[in-house]
């Protein structure tokens, strides 16, 4: 076999092996994607109930709470980046990191010190490689986040927020996560988590759906005190869940185009291999014909 032909065959083999891997990743991402969306849907009643309760307390009592009050003279901010644990998801993690960098610059331009919290191994690796300080990190569940992890993150952020400024506490906290718009679009998004602004989900409440005058047990202050950390947890959990769905969608798309590219390469190399084989055959035939002609000529002269 000709050297050229052997090289092409080898390429085809290795590209087919790679195609199998990317195809498998694509299928896995697709099936997990469905689960991630179900999980987001399953957590919706909880988030809705908490949001409603918090707005009820906020509407009917004049309670002030440290989590909702703006601190005067903000000079320290924290940013939580939600990235993925694994690669092969296209630009998913780097988009979040880039958005985070933009936010850092913005905050620094306003004269604030910024500390960074990261969820997801990719973001952690990126920061460690560049020797950037990380204030807190979590990893291990980026494509199927658990409520326990959300709770832990929320607790850490709340503690940092409630620590007085001169003891290293922060005055505001932002989250950079990826919003899942649809299967083809996922947007890196920044929200300010703390101090809290209570937002009523996507749809505003109906006119006739007025919040009733609640009695609070044991008291409005205690209710608010219990609810607000839960509200933060629910929002962090929600951010993790949408990010997981986005990550899987990004991975599915990246792996789909990788598989398509592999198919294209295989087609191209098959053509080249065929040409090389044909050229080899043609060359052999012309050698044989040429050789036979030379022999016949030699016989005729004697």
């Amino acid at each position, binding site marked *: 076999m000709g050297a050229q032909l052997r090289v092409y065959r080898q390429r085809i083999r290795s590209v087919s092996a790679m195609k199998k891997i990317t195809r498998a990743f694509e299928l896995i991402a697709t099936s997990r994607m469905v689960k991630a969306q179900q999980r987001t849907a399953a957590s919706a009643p909880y988030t809705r109930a908490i949001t409603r309760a918090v707005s009820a307390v906020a509407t009917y009592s004049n309670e002030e709470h440290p989590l909702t009050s703006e601190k005067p003279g903000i000079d320290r901010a924290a940013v939580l980046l939600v990235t993925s644990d694994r690669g092969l998801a296209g630009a998913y993690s780097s988009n979040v990191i880039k958005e985070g960098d933009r936010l850092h610059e913005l905050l620094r331009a306003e004269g604030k010190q910024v500390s960074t919290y990261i969820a997801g191994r990719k973001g952690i690796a990126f920061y460690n490689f560049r020797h950037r300080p990380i204030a807190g990190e979590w990893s291990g569940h980026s494509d199927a986040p658990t409520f326990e992890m959300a709770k832990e993150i929320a607790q850490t952020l709340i503690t940092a927020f409630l620590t007085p400024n001169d003891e290293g506490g922060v005055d505001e906290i932002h989250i950079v996560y990826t919003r899942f718009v649809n299967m083809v679009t996922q947007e890196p998004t920044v929200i300010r988590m703390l101090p809290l602004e209570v937002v009523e989900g996507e749809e505003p409440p109906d006119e006739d759906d007025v919040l009733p005058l*609640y009695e609070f047990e044991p008291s409005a202050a205690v209710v608010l005190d219990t609810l607000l950390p839960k509200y933060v947890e629910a929002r962090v959990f929600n951010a993790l869940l949408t990010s997981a769905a986005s990550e899987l969608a990004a991975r599915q798309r990246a792996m789909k185009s990788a598989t398509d590219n592999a198919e294209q390469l295989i087609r191209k190399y098959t053509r080249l291999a065929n040409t090389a084989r044909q050229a080899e055959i043609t060359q052999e035939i012309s050698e044989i014909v040429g050789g036979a002609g030379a022999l016949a000529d030699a016989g005729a002269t004697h």
Partner: protein
Amino acid sequence: MPLEVELVAADHKVWGGEASMVVARTLDGDLGVLPGHTPVLAVLAPCVITIKATDGGDVLAHCDGGFLSVEHDRVMIVSDRADLGSAPTADR
């Protein structure tokens, strides 16, 4: 008119349906909710919630704290972790 009850945990809806009475323990003590109860927003202690469903039978659910809201005969019980059954379940 029966109560419309929903019991939700952080990652899933645990139970939903109609009931004639709901009993749960708040920080101040047990709270029983019957139809026509005044709107209330109460903080729950870790407890076993009893829901008397209209189709007969009691539904028991364990929750590790959270809150309960009542308005217009709609009862919403929200807890980080809640499971049917009277005993706390181990980590899933």
